[in-house]
Structures are given as C-alpha cells and as structure tokens.
C-alpha cells in the first residue's frame, strides 16, 4: 500500500487534530492573559496563577480530589484485579452471569443514574455523606474499568506458565507473585492510572454523593464555570493539561523503550 501521506489524508489529519487541539491551545494561551476577559488579549501575565494558589477553596477542593483519587483507585485496582481473575480463571460458579453483568453494566451506565442510585443507598443506610461516600462510589464505578483492562491481559497470557510454577513446587500465592503478577503488572498499572483519572475527572457522581461537607475540584470548577468563564479556571486547566501531557508522553516513551529492549533481548536469544 501507498505509505506516504496523500493530500487527502494529510488534510483530514490536520483538520481533525486542529479541531481536537485548538480549543485547548486557546485555553492555555488565555490563562496568561492580563485582562479578566478571557477573549481579549491584553498582554502577558501570570497573575491568575498567583490568584489560583491564594484561593483556599480551590486548594481545599484539589486536596480532597487527590485524596479521593489515590484511595479509591488503589482499592478499585485491588478489587478490579480480583474480579478480572475471577472472570478469566475461576471457571463456572453459581451466579457467574450476574457477576459479569455487574462488571460490564457500570461501563455503559449513565452517570446520573449511578449517582442517583448510590445516593439513595447511602441515605437509606444512614451513611453520612462526605469524602468517604465519594470514595465508595468511585471505587464501585472505576473497579469495572480496571477489571476490563486486567482481564484482557489475563486472557491472552499462557496459563501453563502458572501451572509450571505450581508443578515446580510453588505455593499458589508464590506462583501468583512471581509468575502471574509480573506478566499482568503493566495492565494493573494502566488500570490504576485509568481509575485515578476517572476519579479525578468525575463530576456527576460526586455531585450526587458528596453532600454539603465535601467539594471536589470538578464540583468547584463546575459551580464557578456556571457563572461564566474566568481566567482562574483557565490557569487551573493549563496546569491539569500540562500534567496529563507530560504523563502521557513519558508513558509512551517508556513503553517504546521497553518494546525496543524486549526486541533486542529476543534477537540476542535467537543469536545464542
């Protein structure tokens, strides 16, 4: 096949990526705007960043969000990995259909419904709403994403490796620790990252289950954005976009290098 850019492909890629990136680029540029108006350029300034870091409410919300995201993604990675293991390895058991249904349903469930259902549960068991209930809700909807990521990795790897370890005298736990875990580790890590980002990003579910005592960053952003655009939000967005960009580029470089290393090792093995 023709492996150069044809004019048609070049145009569609340029236009497509312009559409994807221009709004974010504009957002970043205007975070450095002197003026309070976000659409009229009035000179370079970093004062919105200074103001952002002086704003207690934003800092508190950021801290709450970070706590929720770290705790919930860690618990959900544990539960999600267990669920993936059950889905791929446990064979038949009573209620398996219901189990896999409960794993896949949250993936397509509208957030308003999940949020409403969770809130009604917390109210009916009389649980005080706050950081804890946000964590519970986030674990529940993110663990399903983790288990999908991990189970696709588990399904492709050779079960006989595990069996060999068991035959060679490993306890099941040792076999898991020294054979299975290293192989599925990349999937577990990306599952954690996915859960972490989903938790950081979630507005709707948190809005339902947070109650008056806890405010996460998306909730804070949402309430101030409803009053109109503000350069402070642009500054905050710029910080978040830069963190994600650095993270994604690093991750792709690391995975590129590890693929290259793997290839080199394979070639060395063939030569020997």
């Amino acid at each position, binding site marked *: 096949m023709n492996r150069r850019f044809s004019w048609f492909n070049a145009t569609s890629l340029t236009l497509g990526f312009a559409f994807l990136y221009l709004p974010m680029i504009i957002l970043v540029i205007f975070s450095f705007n002197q003026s309070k108006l976000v659409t009229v350029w009035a000179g370079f300034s970093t004062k919105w960043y200074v103001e952002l870091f002086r704003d207690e409410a934003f800092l508190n919300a950021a801290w709450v969000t970070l706590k929720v995201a770290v705790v919930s993604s860690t618990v959900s990675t544990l539960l999600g990995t267990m669920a993936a293991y*059950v889905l791929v390895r446990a064979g038949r058991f009573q209620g398996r259909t219901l189990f896999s249904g409960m794993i896949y349903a949250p993936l397509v469930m509208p957030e308003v419904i999940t949020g409403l259902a969770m809130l009604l549960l917390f109210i009916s068991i009389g649980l005080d709403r706050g950081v804890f209930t946000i964590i519970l809700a986030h674990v529940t909807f993110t663990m399903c994403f983790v288990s999908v990521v991990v189970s696709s990795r588990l399904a492709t790897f050779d079960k006989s490796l595990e069996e060999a370890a068991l035959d060679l005298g490993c306890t099941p736990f040792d076999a898991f620790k020294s054979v299975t875990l290293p192989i599925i580790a990349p999937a577990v890590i990306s599952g954690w990252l996915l859960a972490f980002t989903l938790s950081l990003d979630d507005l709707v579910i948190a809005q339902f289950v947070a109650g008056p005592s806890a405010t996460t960053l998306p909730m804070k952003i949402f309430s101030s954005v409803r009053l109109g655009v503000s350069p402070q939000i642009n500054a905050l967005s710029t910080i978040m976009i830069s963190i994600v960009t650095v993270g994604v580029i690093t991750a792709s470089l690391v995975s590129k290098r590890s693929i290259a290393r793997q290839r080199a090792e394979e070639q060395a093995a063939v030569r020997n």
Partner: protein
Amino acid sequence: MNFRRLFLIFTPYTWLLIFFLIPFAIVLKISLSDYAISIPPYTPVLDLEAGWAGVKEFLSALDFENFTFLTSDALYYTAYLSSLKIAFISTVITLIVGYPIAYGMAQAPDEWRPTLMMLVILPFWTSFLIRVYSWIGILSNEGFLNQFLMWTGIIDAPLQILNTNTAVYTGIVYTYLPFMILPIYSALEKLDGSLIEAAEDLGCSRLQAFWLVTFPLSRPGVIAGCFLVFIPALGEFVIPSLLGGSSTLMIGKVLFEEFFVNRDWPVASAVAVVLLLILIIPIVLFQRNEQKQREAEG
C-alpha cells in the same frame, strides 16, 4: 485452595452486590412510591419491625403512578425524544468527522502511527469538564468564533451559538471524538491493502474501491464507535448544562433537576428507570456486535 477461590469470588462479588445491585433495587422501589413532604421525601417506608403485615402493607402501597405521570406531562417525553434526537445527530456528525481522521491514521507511514495514536488518546486523559469548558470561550457572543467570523466579514452581528443545541452538538462531537476514531482505526489498520489493489486492478475507481471494499470491512469499527458515542451521549448531563440553553431538553439534566431542585425523588427515580429501559436496546445491540467481532477473530 478452595478457601482462596471463595475469597477471590466473594470479595468483589459482595462489593458489587452492595454498591451496584442493591442501589438499583432501591431506585426501582422509590420509583413505585409516592411523593411526601417528609424525610425521606417519599412514602411508604418499609417497616420491618411490623413483620409480614408491614411488608404486605408496603407492597400494596406501591403503584405505577409516577410512570403514568411521566407520560402525562409533556416535559418528560419531550425530553426523552429530544435526548434521542440529540444523541443520534451527534453520533452521525461524530462519524462524519471521525472517519476521515481514522482513515488518515491507518494510511499514515508506520513511523507516524504511534505519535498519531498518542495525539488521539491524550484528550481522553484530559479532564472532560475542561474540554467542555474550553468551548464556552469559543462559542460565546464575544467568543473567538464570532470574532473571527466578524473579522472576515461573513457576519455583521455576533451569532447566538452558546446556549443553543448547536453548542450541545459541538460539545458532544468534540468530547466523544476519540471514542469514534479508535475503533474505526483498529478496524482499518487490520485491513489488507492488497484487497484495495485488487479492486482497483479489476477496474474500480478509488472512490468505488473505498465504498465497495474499505467501508464494508470497517463496519464493525463504525458500529462500535457509534454505540460508544450514542450510549453515553443519551444520558449526558454536563454538556447540556454548560453549553445548552434553557430550551435544550436532555433527560440527564431533567433527572438532575427533578432530584435536586424539585426534590421529587419518586419521579426522579422513575425517570432513571425509564432511561435504563431505553438504554437496554442499544447496549444489547452493542454487546452483540462485540460478540460477533470476537467470534470472527477467534
């Protein structure tokens, strides 16, 4: 060994039962209850201490009143219909925008592909809320789009775009575009280039070869992408509340306001139950498409 297995199954299973299945049972129950000015704002409340009589009384008080109410008030069925319409139109636009991008990526030189792939995935990791927010500054009356159009002289007065359905379409297309591009790209990437060469050798024009060979072979990706956009768009809340106006009716927003503004929990629950019933159709179709895909590959 058996204890281990039991523990492995038991832990995630119980978690999901408590935090996923039971909440839906509660939603269903409240949707059959009546609105009351009390805490919690619905009646009846299940009184387990009264024993069997309590359960019986509780069951006899449940009815479908809220569901009949949904059909009698035009607000609700208009909201369902307009959500379906908005989700459908946005899905079609996303397909039209996303297909050429996926096609361009699949045709790109090999060394370019990882970078292009990363560029599609990057927005997915970026906050959804921020991506929606970025459009407010572009679409508002004094926003960049209006400034640009007035500068070029196409229009004299700013167009009202923000707070209309057009803004909602733009927001949905923008935020869900990666979900459309990725499955189409993965279908097109697997495509055997010699098939197209064969079609061209047999006298097809490039366009004909595209319609007769490439597009049909990418159909599983197209279907998957369409569902991945349509299903979440149907229950969308953030986009209509930030970019839409007072005339934008979407069921996610109606549900939210019914619960938090009107504080009518039974009606909000009934709205949720009906939305779920509507969603079951596309979800089942989507699962079937995925299943067929897996069987074709395996």
